[in-house]
């Protein structure tokens, strides 16, 4: 009973730390826009400060509100288009967030989510264009190919780790680039749309597309798939023996081995599961939204997944809000970039701050430091 209470306090501590970190990042972004908006040449200093202050305020208003609200003659109203973009954008990030959370909770650093996602998208594209057009089954097969391809890419660093005890960090990073270049080569050689000038695949068959909830803004059902997968992972992690073994392995490998848990096999299986989830992320975006393969570079969902896993503290149910948050600031920043001078790439800086501060164990969580502070205070009073 007592142990449980302590744990609860820890979780709320983690949560408040995360919220503080997010606030710090948003504040840093605000200051950055303000400073870079200062016009040093024209006008007086105070005039310049006032203008920049106003512009920053406008930019941040769009940044933080546009996925939900838009101004219609100065009256805010619900922005349905922004909302759909926000939800659509969050789908791949939820999935990669789950994938990365899984490997992290097993205590390994497989950073190959990006490549697994890309390989899944490439494989799914082949099925989407070449598989016979049978309604429902076709779309199902497309996602299944994505899963298999993602798993296959994850299997390589996973086997190096499992069979040969090699480090998974470097090999999984290398796989990202192998998947990227080989994937592009396959698309270009076999599925290229010759009519289009840019490098993209032919259009997917209609039966390969995901069901749309809204035709105009292409709101696809990917979000329900993502929520479903989240529930499934939560169930596996918290309600099955396999999930329990996995958490024990992640917490303490030696202990796991002594209690008869085959930790290396657990680690291997987790990487495969993680790869299959990451493999879904990309193809869902293509089959749901774009309707063809059009990436000439890696879209970065895998790295977003790393941020999500960190913000969510590897807890499947927290992955949902974390991914929604990351997607929210992404969509908001894109809109901000369209209406103001501020370039949307600023969110990369915010994301970097969030990652750095959340992973810093000693940041805001340093109990010895807090104790020193506390013990230093009365001492000072005695001095005075």
């Amino acid at each position: 009973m007592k142990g449980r209470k302590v744990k609860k306090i820890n979780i709320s501590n983690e949560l408040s730390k995360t919220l503080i970190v997010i606030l710090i990042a948003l504040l840093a972004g605000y200051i950055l826009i303000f400073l870079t908006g200062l016009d040093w040449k024209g006008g007086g200093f105070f005039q310049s400060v006032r203008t920049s202050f106003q512009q920053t305020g406008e930019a941040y208003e769009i940044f933080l509100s546009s996925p939900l609200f838009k101004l219609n003659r100065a009256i805010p109203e619900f922005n349905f288009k922004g909302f759909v973009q926000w939800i659509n954008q969050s789908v791949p990030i939820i999935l990669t967030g789950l994938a990365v959370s899984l490997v992290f909770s097993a205590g390994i650093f497989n950073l190959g989510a990006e490549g697994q996602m890309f390989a899944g998208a490439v494989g799914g594209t082949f099925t989407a264009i070449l598989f016979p057009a049978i309604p429902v089954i076709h779309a199902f097969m497309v996602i299944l190919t994505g899963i298999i391809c993602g798993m296959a890419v994850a299997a390589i660093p996973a086997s190096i780790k499992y069979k040969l005890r090699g480090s998974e960090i470097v090999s999984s990073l290398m796989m990202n680039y192998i998947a990227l270049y080989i994937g592009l080569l396959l698309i270009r050689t076999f599925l290229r749309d010759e009519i289009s000038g840019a490098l993209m695949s032919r259009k997917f068959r209609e039966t390969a597309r995901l069901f749309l909830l809204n035709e105009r803004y292409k709101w696809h059902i990917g979000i329900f798939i993502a929520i479903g997968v989240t529930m499934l992972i939560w169930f596996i992690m918290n309600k099955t023996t396999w999930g329990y073994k996995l958490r024990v392995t992640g917490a303490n490998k030696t202990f796991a081995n002594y209690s008869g848990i085959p930790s290396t096999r657990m680690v291997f299986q987790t990487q495969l599961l993680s790869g299959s989830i990451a493999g879904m992320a990309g193809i869902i975006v293509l089959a749901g939204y774009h309707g063809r393969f059009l990436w000439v570079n890696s879209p970065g969902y895998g790295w977003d997944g790393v941020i999500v896993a960190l913000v969510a503290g590897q807890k499947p149910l927290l992955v949902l809000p974390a991914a929604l948050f990351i997607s929210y600031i992404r969509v908001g920043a894109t809109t901000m970039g369209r209406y103001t001078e501020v370039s949307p790439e600023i969110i990369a800086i915010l994301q970097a701050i969030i990652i750095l501060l959340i992973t810093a164990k000693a940041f805001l969580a340093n109990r010895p430091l807090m104790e020193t502070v506390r013990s230093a205070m009365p001492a000072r009073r005695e001095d005075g």
Partner: protein
Amino acid sequence: MADMVDFLSTSLRVTTPILLSALGALIASSAGATNIALEGIMLFSAFVGAVVSGLTHSLILSLLSAVSSGLIMTGILAFFSLKLKANIIMAAIALNIFSSGGTIFFLNVITGEKGSSASIESLVFPTLEIPLINKIPGIGEILSGHNILTYFALFSVIAVSFMLKRTPLGTKIRAVGENKEAAESVGISVRKVKTVALLLSGFYASLGGVYLSMGYVSWFSRNMTSGRGWIALAAQALGGKSAYGVAISSGVFGMSESASYSLKLLNIPGELTQAFPFIITVLMLIIVSFKKERRFIGNS
């Protein structure tokens, strides 16, 4: 013959940034710290170098500011991973994400453009004609007339090898990398040594970056490193713990990049040559760990 000379000369040119960063990766990994932020450090230093030189027209100032930006980034990496107990892989990912977007954000602030800094052309590091050697036909054209950073990279192979093997600092770095506890027990400050090793790796990575925007070409363009930081990491993984090994693997990757320019005529797809360094590294990792595994079983 002329083709061959051209090929080798180009190889040396494209090997330079990979080699410089790979030496950085070597120093960091010798101290037991995996620095996967090389890509981000290269990119940011390339950006800082190009912009400062475009604005100040001073080679020294741009070199200094580019190198200091690299040192600051690795300083952040060291501070967060060693002092604040952040995971070094995570902190490095943060730096990479920062560079990929941050360079575009600041480029837009400074030049008003988002693609490249071509509007403010930057200076280029001078090339060096080596006397006597440049008179030899063939060899002269291959070895002479390169950017000064290329020669610095070649010199650094010897310097880093010497530093790691023969100097007190190198011994400490290797001791920390081999066995942290043992090093600590003889009074070596693990944190200090790792910080120095990381800073050195940042120094080399920033030179690799600066070479791209102020040697290779005279401007910065978005994502101009295009994976060279990762190739450097691969070169280190392949070359092992020896500076000469790292130099050889960097050279092989440089040659494969150089070949990709001439192989276009032979109809070998560019994507395949781009993927080559990564494929070869994964294969080598498999082979090397396979050998280790055999030995492991043999011993037990």
